[in-house]
């Protein structure tokens, strides 16, 4: 008799404790290119999101209403292949029942998944940085879309601000050397009119991605005697372009809207001016901003490394660390983890202050503060923080 009472009580106690431990989980899906030649954009997003989720979970999760939730990251590597991404997204939405997806950054991947995603409008939110997302924002049946990167053009665009700064440096003629790929073409479309309006002559050359030796285009462009070289847009090509441009003495002044300061610093003694747009100059911000300092320390500890990826960190401005926190905050404000329409509404009303000051404009595109870095000869850098609000 006693034994069975004990058994029943024991089972009850077990049941109660199990129930207490039963966690509600909100899954966050991620589809980015983490490997392959286009891995630059996906990798940092993965690193940052994973860190944020771990931090939140270690603090016990987050509360929405009466329930406590933990986050789970379901990350997929698209390898830059639209076919893979489509299958992966279907897996995320159907098998994993994910309602929130980070990514993609790559346009070709986005184009591949857009029809299916649009079919499932209303069932989930997609927060990605792809160039092609910009054109889809605000279109009917695309309410699921949010773009987490800022845009060069438009009212809150930073392109105009950058060119204004350039004009103040006395530029009259600029040579533009960009990759012949998705963003390269868009960059030409965006910047040609901006330069024209500013009265700066722009000579354009596009090169095949994968080029390593820029002797020909540099010689060709230098013949036109421009004041500045405007090279694009990933570190992979910038290191070579800036090096070859400076060691031959063909160019001494540079203007960039993407990429890190690395290429400039490596060649600092041969450069007169190196003006770059950077989402954040981490080397500096680490010293001046407490949140950034904490982030760098947390990253090093979590990933057990002494090497913080300063050159990649600016890419955490898209679908990364801050955005996990923003999403959680939005769920708390909306009082729901399931009603994606309400969560989106909450997201769009947020003014988030994390590593970046981020808000979303009425179409769902991110606007955040950025740095204009100006490196002078010898490596001395002045950073101007710009707040496009």
């Amino acid at each position, binding site marked *: 008799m006693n034994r069975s009472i004990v058994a029943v009580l024991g089972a009850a106690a077990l049941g109660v404790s199990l129930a207490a431990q039963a966690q509600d989980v909100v899954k966050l899906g991620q589809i980015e290119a983490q490997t392959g030649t286009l891995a630059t954009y996906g990798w940092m997003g993965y690193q940052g999101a994973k860190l944020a989720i771990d931090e939140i979970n270690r603090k016990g999760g987050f509360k929405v209403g009466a329930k406590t939730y933990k986050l789970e990251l379901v990350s997929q590597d698209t390898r830059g292949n639209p076919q893979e991404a489509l299958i992966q997204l279907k897996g995320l939405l159907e098998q994993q029942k994910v309602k929130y997806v980070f990514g993609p950054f790559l346009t070709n991947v986005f184009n591949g998944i857009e029809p299916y995603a649009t079919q499932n409008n209303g069932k989930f939110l997609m927060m990605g940085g792809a160039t092609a997302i910009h054109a889809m924002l605000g279109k009917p049946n695309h309410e699921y879309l949010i773009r987490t990167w800022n845009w060069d053009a438009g009212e809150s665009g930073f392109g105009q601000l950058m060119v204004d700064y350039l004009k103040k440096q006395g530029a009259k003629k600029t040579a533009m050397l960009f990759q012949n790929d998705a963003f390269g073409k868009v960059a030409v479309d965006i910047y040609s009119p901006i330069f024209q309006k500013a009265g700066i002559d722009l000579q354009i050359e596009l090169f095949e991605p994968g080029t*390593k*030796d820029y002797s020909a285009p540099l010689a060709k462009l230098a013949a036109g005697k421009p004041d500045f070289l405007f090279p694009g847009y990933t570190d992979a090509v910038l290191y070579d372009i800036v090096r070859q441009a400076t060691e031959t003495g063909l160019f001494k002044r540079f203007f960039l809207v993407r990429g890190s300061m690395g290429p400039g610093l490596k060649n600092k003694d041969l450069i007169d001016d190196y003006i770059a747009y950077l989402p954040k100059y981490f080397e500096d911000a680490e010293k001046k901003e407490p949140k950034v300092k904490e982030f760098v320390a947390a990253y090093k500890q979590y990933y057990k490394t002494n090497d913080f990826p300063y050159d990649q960190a600016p890419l955490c401005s898209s679908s990364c660390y801050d955005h996990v926190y923003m999403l959680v905050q939005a769920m708390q404000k909306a009082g729901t983890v399931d009603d994606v329409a309400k969560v989106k509404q909450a997201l769009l009303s947020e003014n988030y202050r994390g590593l970046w000051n981020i808000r979303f404009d009425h179409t769902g595109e991110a606007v955040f503060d950025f740095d204009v870095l100006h490196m002078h000869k010898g490596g001395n850098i002045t950073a101007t923080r710009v707040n496009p609000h």
Partner: protein
Amino acid sequence: MTQLIAGQLLNGAIVGTLYGIVALGVTLTFGITGIVNFALGVFMMFGAYAAWYFSDTLGLPYPLAVLAAVAVTAAAGLVADQALFRFTRNNLVNGLLVSLGLIAVLEACALLVFTSTPKELHRVLPGIVMVAGLVLPKMKLVVFALLLVVIFATYAALTRTWTGRAAYAYAQNPEAAALMGVATSRLQTGVVVYSCGLAGLGGALYASLYSLEPTLGSLFILKAIEAAILAGIGSVTGALLGGVILGVTEGVGSIYLPLAFRDAYGLVFLVVILLFKPAGLFAGRR
């Protein structure tokens, strides 16, 4: 304009010798083992990262780092040969498949270890010279000279040493060569190792001029194969000339015509040449 052209002729020749050294590896491997070793591209990448590691992480002086890189790449080539290529002699398709597999594995390893962040070697020889109206970094000329020396040394070794002539004999007629006492499998392994060493050298020197990333081999191997074919598989000087012609065509073509089609110029040239000389420009020649 003429100055631009002259400059690009010279630059094209220099870039072409880089294609040429890998092309030499391709052509030797094809002649002696009957396969096209696509993986020479990743061996080049291996040599480049090795040189960077020895030089910038371990602090060895650059020339020593290059030698160490070549040695390490050749050793890797030996391992690959014994484990994989040995089973694909004279089987073009299997050789292709094995190469593809090796490329996938090695590139993934490089990505894991080094990440896709570009690496740059410290400036080994800063400074420029003016040649034929072209501003050239001194290091490019040094690389040019070194590669030429190695290619001609290979040519000399092939025509003047016993091993070299044995290799030629084997390429012409494997059975007869074996009957004459040529150690066939030793020769084949030797050629694979040597080709990987050449690719490693190319990579180590490449590292002094350009930034490094795990996929640097894939572009180069394509160009190297184009160069090897252009010249005619089996021709040593041809490999060099093929590389130079390819480099020059690309450079000069980019001046006149849209840069975006740069890769196409070399290809068009290749197709045209092959139509009139199906065995390549210098086939039959040494």
